[in-house]
């Protein structure tokens, strides 16, 4: 195991965050705060409880995921896309570094960033709503799992992308809409058929509900199903990354 290489990549990637601290941390915090103000306070003030949870608190798990998913994908994809774009990737490819080590370095750094962000968002939320987490360990574990999965997914995107537009398109066109439609702001039981059933095909529903169960003990989907869905997603990502390195796809000609 080339530990020094993992550390070098990890440090380098976190260093990049440090240089762009404002974009990296402030922007998502401001966005989340706006959601709390608009949905939690302004609209939530006029809404009844959902599943016995005050609306402001109800949306926290979904909002948290909304930011973590897009930030994880964004950071991880950018982390590997940028050296491909500038050509500096040559160094990683010519170094005695295995695929696993490179992925640990890049994905580990992106995940660290996301987890720091999650902490900041949860702290920010306390300024807007009263809430407490029912299963903190499950919440932390689930957050970690989701973060890692989506950082892996971002890594794949960063290898696949051949332009900055492509880098943006998946988070903007797929992940964000799915998150909005995935029960972040409502319980899917509030939807009429056939929308309720259609929603069950949205994978984000399982993530949001898994998180909500960890927070408040209630969810539209059984927590075991949520966990299984997340693990399956992670397994698919790992499989694809393994394929990327085995074939050299877009990395080694």
């Amino acid at each position, binding site marked *: 195991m080339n530990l020094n*290489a993992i550390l070098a990549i990890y440090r*380098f990637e976190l260093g990049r965050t440090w240089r762009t601290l404002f974009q990296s941390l402030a922007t998502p915090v401001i966005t989340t705060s706006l959601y709390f103000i608009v949905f939690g306070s302004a609209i939530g003030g006029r809404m009844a409880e959902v599943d016995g949870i005050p609306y402001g608190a109800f949306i926290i798990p979904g909002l948290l995921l909304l930011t973590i998913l897009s930030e994880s994908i964004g950071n991880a994809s950018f982390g590997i896309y940028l050296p491909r774009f500038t*050509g500096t990737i040559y*160094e990683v490819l010519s170094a*005695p570094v295995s695929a696993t080590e490179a992925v640990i370095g890049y994905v580990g750094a992106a995940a660290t960033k996301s987890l720091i962000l999650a902490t900041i968002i949860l702290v920010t939320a306390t300024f807007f709503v009263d809430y407490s987490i029912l299963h903190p360990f499950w919440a932390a574990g689930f957050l970690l799992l989701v973060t890692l999965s989506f950082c892996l997914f971002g890594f794949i995107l960063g290898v696949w992308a051949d332009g900055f537009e492509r880098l943006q398109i998946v988070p903007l066109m797929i992940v964000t809409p799915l998150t909005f439609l995935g029960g972040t702001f409502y319980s899917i039981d509030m939807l009429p058929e056939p929308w309720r059933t259609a929603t069950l095909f949205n994978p984000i529903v399982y993530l949001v509900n898994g998180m909500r169960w960890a927070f408040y003990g209630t969810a539209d989907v059984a927590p075991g199903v949520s966990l299984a869905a997340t693990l399956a997603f992670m397994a698919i990502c790992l499989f694809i990354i393994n394929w990327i390195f085995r074939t050299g796809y877009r990395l*080694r000609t």
Partner: protein
Amino acid sequence: MDSVISIKGLRKTYDAGTEALKGVDLDIRRGEIFGLLGENGAGKTTLIGIVCGLIRATAGTVTVDGHDNVTAYRAARARIGLVPQELAVDMFGHVRHTVEFSRGLFGKGRDPARIEEVLRSLSLWDKRDAKIGDLSGGMKRRVLIAKALAHDPDILFLDEPTAGVDVSLRRDMWALIGKLRDEGKTIILTTHYIEEAEEMADRIGVITRGELILVDEKRAMMEKLGQTRLSVGLKAPLAALPPALDGLPLTLSDDGLTIVHQAGGEGESAEVAEILKRMIAADIDIATVDSSRSSLEDIFVDLVGGKRS
């Protein structure tokens, strides 16, 4: 001879269908400076890319110090430092950090003293905290060299190290490369500047269109393929070569004003002297004497040109 890199039957066909290497065999000797010469698109960068692990070979093997560069890539790559042709640098990074990063990537622990030594040897110490994007092109290239040296490799690949570098910096670069060789490193460099290969390399390989058509000691190559050319300008035109010069490989120009002697290799000066002696004895009025030895450049153009036609 102790070979440090051994390349056998190396082929590369890119996905687009370009056959960049058509079966290259090459052994690099420990401690030598090997110059790889070839025109644009000859396959130099492809060859280096395969040895360093950036490009997958279509066929063939590469061993570095006995380690196969695919199955034992860690051992093989740890011995190599690469300075790429393109100036690929992290524009927002800082000089010292980027060199430390390289050292870590190759599995070595932190060593500020060694980093300082490398930066000093490349006259980059004053710039250690500068942003790489703010450096000049020549400095950026030196940063790339520093990165390649950061993990103390035995073998250094320099893909066109002096492209876009001014004359005085180029001299500095040559001095640096000479110093590295004196430290015992094996150096493989590619260049378009033939004078550079002539100046630096111990052995030279000529690659054209994916084939290594010649590998030889630089001196032997110049002797075997080099030409001495003597041209004597005359005051009055001659209709034909005088009988006194019979038996010598001479030609008379069409206007009858120049006699040209052309011969291969070394040890021709005796013949040159003989020609001049006989011409003077035959009372031929000499206006000018011009003698030149062909450079590696001429040899190269001949070789590659011959291959093409």
